[in-house]
């Protein structure tokens, strides 16, 4: 009975699929996989038979999951130069990783663009990433790339404090100058940070401080800090938004030129902690077994080989970390002295992640239970 | 007079549903308002019950002007055509519901409820659910519920119209007996002339919002006001008892001419 049913179901789902595309596409650009059986002369579509075929290396569509849709300008240039269409979807790195694991080795995207490096490290460990080798990778600083070529960095995110001037004045708080300051009792209930499980930036804070202070002193520090934290946001943008709206006086947030502009507009002071700035590279990687691996691989090479492309990226990113990634890059200057960046061993970011987050969860939970 | 309707008027938008209706009734009597559908009989009943406010005229009950009294304050209860029983309550809870608003203790109410259930022949059904009993039994529950609060006047709005023929005849006799035994004053609305003639002490025949004739069944039998009345009643078919009350209505097999 089941055997008879299957073709019917397939036929039905095909009809649905076709109808779906017809309905949804009145203004959208045509997607290749919408016409699986039509036009055999067209370039091989991602869903077509994957048997090796001497097709031109670059064709079809490259599907990208990125942290922001602002990158569309960069990908537009890529499309112009290579003819590969790009479809962009913004997703946080945690979501990407969950989706990857659920898909069980048949990813629905080709390129992973942006997001905390710890997620990339986990993905590499799970064997979900594709190795990429290209000549220009030699120009990239070793710190910011995977030795085996499974992931690269497109820049780094740095972390600082945001202080809402009006609220601080109202509460007569002086702006904290260092990580050590944050544990002062006067800031109780006025600091907001994101849950390090969700926010790669705030995970970098935890890992970097633990590395700097050492395990014992580090955890004592976070226990003290926990007393002052109002709550741990479940979105990476919470600290910026909540301090911007004047709901909390101090936020632990990523800082880039976009944040600087918002700080100007909303009356926030940006503090670079004097005892060191935690940082985290933002990854770029190609998914293993992806439908258009070739295009994605080429994109990585295309991006890092050309200074012009990297400059455009730095412009969109509104930060200068690309200079660190590729020291030979010209036209981008760091807005800060590398000396204030904390010393971090990135290899520990991936290996310690589960352990650290688990411990942090217990620590957060203790406070939650008090309420 | 115990119940006195004088010059009642009611109109819905442009239509005059009740036009200048006046009639009166002695205590302990049963009045039947008879007419075809749309004649204004139910509207009249609703004005007496307080669910409609007359546009003109007055209703006196036991010397008290109740024209503008809300239904919950009137010493009048109604047995509705659809019974209006509470489906979420038991038979007993339904029957004693009205006592909640009349200084009865729970125990007293139960006792009285049992008494009235006995009166309508529903002993043993106290804890039955409404949807578990038959239509005739539901009718009795509605009756007991209306009578238990000892109203000055009980209104019945075509109460037997949902019952089958045999049951209707039986209920008629029971109602008449109950009314006599309790000395209850009742106004009974129906479109069934047989029912009216058998039950009524007085009859009011309505047509198109007007009172056409008012009197005892015997009076009307002897002196129908016009051809409409005699035609409507089919007066040839009555059998009378020696005491002057109607004993039976015989349906004619062949449609005869209406006597003028």
């Amino acid at each position, binding site marked *: 009975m*089941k055997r008879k*049913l299957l073709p019917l*179901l397939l036929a039905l*789902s095909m009809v649905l699929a076709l109808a*779906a595309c*017809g*309905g*949804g*596409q009145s*203004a*959208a650009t045509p997607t290749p996989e919408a016409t699986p059986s039509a036009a055999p002369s067209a370039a091989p579509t991602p869903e077509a038979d994957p048997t090796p075929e001497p097709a031109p290396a670059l064709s079809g569509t490259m599907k990208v999951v990125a942290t922001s*849709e602002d990158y569309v300008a960069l990908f537009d240039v890529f499309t112009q130069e290579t003819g590969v269409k790009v479809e962009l*979807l913004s997703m*946080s790195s*945690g*979501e990407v990783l*969950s989706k*990857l694991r*659920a898909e*069980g080795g*048949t990813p629905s*995207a080709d390129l992973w663009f942006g997001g905390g490096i710890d*997620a990339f490290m986990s993905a590499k460990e799970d064997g979900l990433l594709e190795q990429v080798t290209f000549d220009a990778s030699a120009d990239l600083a070793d710190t910011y790339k995977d030795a085996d070529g499974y992931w690269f960095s497109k820049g780094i995110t740095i972390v600082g404090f945001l202080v809402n001037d009006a609220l601080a004045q109202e509460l007569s708080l002086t702006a904290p100058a260092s990580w050590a300051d944050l544990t002062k009792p006067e800031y109780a209930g006025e600091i907001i940070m994101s*849950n390090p*499980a*969700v926010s790669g930036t705030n995970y970098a804070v935890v890992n970097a401080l633990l590395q700097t202070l050492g395990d014992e002193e580090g955890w004592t520090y976070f226990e003290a800090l926990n007393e002052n934290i109002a*709550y741990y946001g*479940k*979105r*990476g*943008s919470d600290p*910026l*938004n909540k301090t911007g*709206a*004047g*709901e909390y006086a101090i936020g632990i947030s990523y800082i880039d030129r976009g944040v600087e502009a918002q700080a100007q507009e*909303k009356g926030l002071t940006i503090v670079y902690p004097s005892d060191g700035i935690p940082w985290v590279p933002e990854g770029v990687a190609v998914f293993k077994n992806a439908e258009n691996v070739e295009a994605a691989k080429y994109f990585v090479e295309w991006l890092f080989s050309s200074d012009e492309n990297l400059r455009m990226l730095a412009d969109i990113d509104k930060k200068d970390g690309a200079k660190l990634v590729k020291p030979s890059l010209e036209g981008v200057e760091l807005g800060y002295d590398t000396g204030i960046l904390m010393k971090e061993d990135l290899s520990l970011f991936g290996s310690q992640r*589960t352990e650290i987050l688990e411990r942090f969860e217990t620590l*957060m939970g203790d406070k*939650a239970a008090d*309420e | 007079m115990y119940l006195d309707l004088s010059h009642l008027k009611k109109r819905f938008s442009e239509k005059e549903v009740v036009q200048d209706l006046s009639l009166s009734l002695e205590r302990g009597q049963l009045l039947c308002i008879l007419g075809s559908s749309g004649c204004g009989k139910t509207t009249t009943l609703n004005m007496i019950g*307080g*669910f409609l406010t007359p546009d003109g005229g007055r209703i006196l009950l036991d010397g008290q002007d109740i024209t503008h009294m809300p*239904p*919950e304050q009137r010493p009048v*209860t*109604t047995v*509705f055509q*659809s*019974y*209006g029983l*509470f*489906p*979420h309550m038991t038979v007993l809870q339904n029957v004693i*519901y009205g006592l*909640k*608003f009349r200084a009865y203790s729970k125990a007293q109410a139960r006792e009285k409820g049992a008494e009235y259930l006995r009166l309508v022949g529903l002993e043993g059904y106290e804890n039955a659910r409404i*949807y578990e009993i038959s239509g005739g039994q539901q009718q009795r529950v*509605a009756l007991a*519920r209306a009578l238990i609060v000892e109203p000055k006047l009980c209104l019945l709005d075509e109460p037997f119209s949902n019952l089958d023929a045999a049951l209707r005849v039986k209920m008629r006799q029971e109602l008449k007996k109950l009314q006599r035994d309790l000395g209850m004053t009742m106004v009974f609305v129906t479109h069934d002339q047989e029912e009216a003639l058998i039950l009524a002490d007085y009859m009011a025949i309505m047509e198109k919002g007007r009172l056409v004739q008012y009197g005892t069944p015997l009076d009307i039998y002897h002196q129908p006001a016009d051809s409409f009345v005699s035609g409507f009643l089919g007066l040839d078919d009555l059998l009378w008892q020696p005491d002057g009350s109607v004993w039976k209505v015989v349906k004619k097999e062949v449609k005869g001419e209406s006597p003028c």
Partner: protein
Amino acid sequence: MNKHGTSAPPPRPQGGGDRCGSAGKGASLDALFRLFGRGADKLVLLTLLGLVCLFVLVPIVFIVLRSFRGADGLTLEFYQTVWQQYRDNLWNSVFVGVCTAVLCTLFSVAAALFLATRQRWGKLLCMAILLITMVSPPFVSSLAYIQLYGRRGWITHRLLGLSWNPYNCWGVILMQSISFVPLNALFLNGMLEKLDTGSLQAARDLGAKPAAILRDVVLPLLGPGILVSLLLSFVRSLADFGTPVIIGGRFSTIASEIYLQLVGYSNLEKAAAMNLFLLLPSIAAFFVYRALMRQTDRLAQAGRSRQEALQLPLRRCGAAGVLILAVSLLFFLAMVLQYGCIFLSGFLRSSREGYVFTTQYLKQLFTYDRSTMLRSVGYALIVSLAGTLLAMLFSYYMERRRVPGRHFFDCLVTLPYMIPGTCFGIGYILAFNHPPLKLTGTAVIVLANMLFKQLPTTTKICSAALAQVPTSLERAVRDLGGGQWSVLRDVIFPGLRPAFLSCFVYNFSSSMTTAGAILFLISPGRKLAVFKLFDAVQVGEYATASLIATTIIVLVLAVEGSVYALTTLGARRPAPKRS
């Protein structure tokens, strides 16, 4: 003419003309069904059950299997850790669920009574508010709550000068309660419209004052509806992750922890185990609901809808009446404020000096996201039509035909209602990422997920409508020679006409507004409006989020309005003239 003439099963040999051709489409389908006879009917049924198994059972089985999958072989470790780690969260979930159910039902009953007792304009206004607020795009309501009542809220801070912490469990309970009200209130209002006026009159006649009528008659008769409201709100609250994520602060429920597991720890096994953990109270609630509904079904009266207002002056209903008036007015005010805040936020830009009016977000939206919006509408239309058809057929086979195993399928179809959307989405990825059923990355997976997530509700609507269609009509069709297809076409579908609109409206607005299930199913190039909305909320672009929400609301109302107009105008036929 002999009535048996038409009922003779074998088609009579026709000498000359082919009469089938001239009789139109209905007849040719008829012919098809006659050709296949009982086979066609079986085929439809099997397809239906096959689809349900494929798109409900299979993904759930995959989730269950995943929750037992350890590094080497089967394991119970995830259940052990979940039980140890999340007992408090389970308690939180149940606590919030119970509070929300009670509070929401209180609001809903009050709002429904208020609506039912209004005349003309008041009724129209309340109805409009409920219909608009029934379209509830995710997350933005919570953002509006912070905007209005937060530490710097327009009302709490600017107006009243308060500074308090809105991020706690009471905020979650309040927001969930308020956002579930419109659907419940409209449902209860429907019951009130069908309330037997006889009972009300009788109570009044026996001396009951309005307060007593409310207490002794109206509320008890609303009983089944109140129960439904309680249990559905409870289950919905358990599965809702958006509200606790945004305004829970340090307070978290199982649903928000599942979300955190997925986006933070990417631990599918644990998330799957937690989901099944959450299913326990949901299923318990569902069985209570079923048992109680069977009892109270008999109370439900198949009355006709009244158009006029319910005769129950709330002002004279004593303390309960005052409470109802106060609660409902407060509710309607809160709704107006909340939605006003959402509409307004799309056009305001905050700066150091305060708020500035701007249309920049609107321009951005119309430049970059028109295709996304249109795709959303297209998907929603497909889901609405296919979903409604499926629900009608399914309810017909379950209610009217003694299909073996119908109880099993009935339960199966209800399951997606109880599973948090994110998890149902993950189940789809797990189940459909390999040939021969590789659907990931296609539109089908998104459409099917939406459709089957909504099917529990639409089949319930259809079953309720079917209960009003007398079986004698079906027998009449069979008696006069019609087959199963004729029964469907001439009795069941016309009888389900009122349900069609409800199903369509529900499907359409749900498809436009539910985010949970499809967050993980969307593929690049197939963005939907809710995804865009979720993204904007994530990044903190509240103005954009509000604007998308507003657009969604406007689109939903426009489409539903036109469908309503089409169906009612189509149904209205010229009345036969009397001489």
